[in-house]
């Protein structure tokens, strides 16, 4: 397809020079948008998996000096654990140790000995039965009644907002990809029309000696495919190091959210196939454009 003979001198056109440079940034932007979609999708999935079927019960630190507070808090924790383990729909309830609490706070407050002296709230990690989940309203009421200072957090409120935001960004990115596709197509459309205007005389000769419209359209389409592929590969060449660079920066960051900022294999496949998609889009657009213009000839 790339070496097929052409009767039209399309290789010397101005469009041959600028088209790849227009397609390249389009493919780059598309790749960035697609990468965002896949990464966000992965993050949402991970968050969802992590919190589905789990609850957290927080018990505020009891008042008093450190030793009294710790003792009274521990009693509340044991009371809450007993209540939770007996509640229908709960598979397990396990309080987090002091070290686990400190590890959770360390990214924000540092790994200081001072943390051990602070009256930290206790956290109980609760696993629910996926088949018959507990009545969260009844559980929250019973906890509040039986264990003063206990509160139930089912993660869903903050997670649903986060997922909502992520989904919006995801749709925005998909919209951007479609928009880029439309802009690329429009660029090819006008480039093809310009090419047809430049080669009007040659096209007329081919038309008059009996060339079917598709004979002419194929020559433009082949050229557009080649230029689209060239631009696509150029765009991909810009994308891969950029993505790799962002990946390296993300891995250097500490914190639970960004630890899995990696592109899944399907994401890489989608990005790698972009040059071919750009080339096919260019080819189809050019072919349809030529057919549309030639339809006006007698």
């Amino acid at each position, binding site marked *: 397809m790339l070496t097929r003979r052409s*009767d039209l*001198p399309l290789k*010397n056109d101005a469009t041959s020079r600028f088209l790849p440079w227009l397609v390249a940034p389009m493919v780059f932007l598309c790749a960035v948008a697609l990468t965002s979609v896949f990464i966000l999708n992965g993050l949402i999935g991970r968050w969802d998996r992590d919190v589905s079927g789990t609850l957290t019960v927080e018990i505020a630190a009891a008042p008093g000096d450190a030793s009294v507070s710790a003792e009274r808090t521990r009693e509340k924790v044991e009371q809450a654990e007993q209540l939770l383990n007996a509640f229908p729909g709960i598979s397990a309830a396990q309080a987090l140790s002091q070290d686990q609490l400190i590890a959770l706070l360390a990214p924000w407050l540092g790994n200081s000995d001072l943390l051990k002296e602070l009256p930290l709230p206790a956290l109980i990690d609760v696993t629910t039965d996926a088949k018959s989940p507990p009545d969260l309203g009844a559980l929250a009421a019973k906890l509040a009644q039986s264990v003063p200072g206990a509160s139930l957090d089912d993660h869903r409120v903050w997670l649903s907002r986060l997922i909502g935001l992520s989904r919006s960004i995801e749709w925005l990115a998909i919209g951007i990809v479609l928009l880029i596709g439309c802009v690329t197509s429009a660029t090819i459309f006008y480039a093809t029309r310009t090419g047809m205007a430049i080669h009007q*005389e*040659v096209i*007329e*000769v*081919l*038309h*008059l*000696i*009996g*060339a*079917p*419209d598709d*004979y002419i359209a194929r020559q433009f389409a082949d050229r557009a495919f080649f230029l689209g592929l060239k631009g696509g590969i150029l765009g991909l060449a810009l994308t891969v190091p950029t993505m790799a660079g962002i990946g390296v920066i993300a891995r250097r960051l500490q914190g639970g959210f960004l630890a899995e900022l990696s592109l899944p294999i399907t994401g890489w496949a989608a990005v790698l196939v972009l040059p071919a998609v750009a080339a096919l889009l260019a080819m189809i657009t050019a072919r349809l454009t030529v057919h549309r213009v030639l*339809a006006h000839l*007698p």
Partner: protein
Amino acid sequence: MVQFDNVAVRYGRGPEVLQDITFSLPAGSFHFLTGTSGAGKTSLLRLMYLSQRPSRGRVVLFGRDMAVAKRYELPALRRRVGVVFQDFRLLDHLSTLDNVALPLRVSGASESDVRKFVPDLLTWVGLADHLDAKPPTLSGGQKQRVAIARAVIGRPDLLLADEPTGNVDDHIAMRLMYLFEELNKLGTTVVVATHNENLVSRLPYPQIHLEDGRLRKR
């Protein structure tokens, strides 16, 4: 082969450049199309090579009424018509060989056929040494011979030549006319538009004579 009934052509809102043209060309006939400059010869040829639709009247080509022919049918009909344009219309970026090969390639001929037939024909028209030459490097007469070779390479059913001998000397002109006669003997219907009275008088073929866009008997 070709049937015109009360055909007229008007460009835009201008006057009719052809009026009430009625004639028919039997298959295998040879005609000269004569008339002064501006008489409408090129417009008449354009109707026959399907580059122009009549403003009124009926054109029937190869038994097909052009008024009802679908657009997708026209390329196949055009491939049955060989045209020598007055301004040659050679493609400057292609070699002589590739210019002449165009009708074959458009009709899907193999490259082996192209390599077999095109050099032979170019040899016949005296351009064997110019297979790879580009039209801008050729003289007017050489271009004209390339244009003729391109028109006849596909062995068309109808050959239309607009002033095909305008840029060549009498010897080459007669040689080209013999080529048209050979094609005519093989069954091709030939119409040669020309100003060359000498040529018309030397060959025994009927004339279609145009004056001010109308047919006149001669």
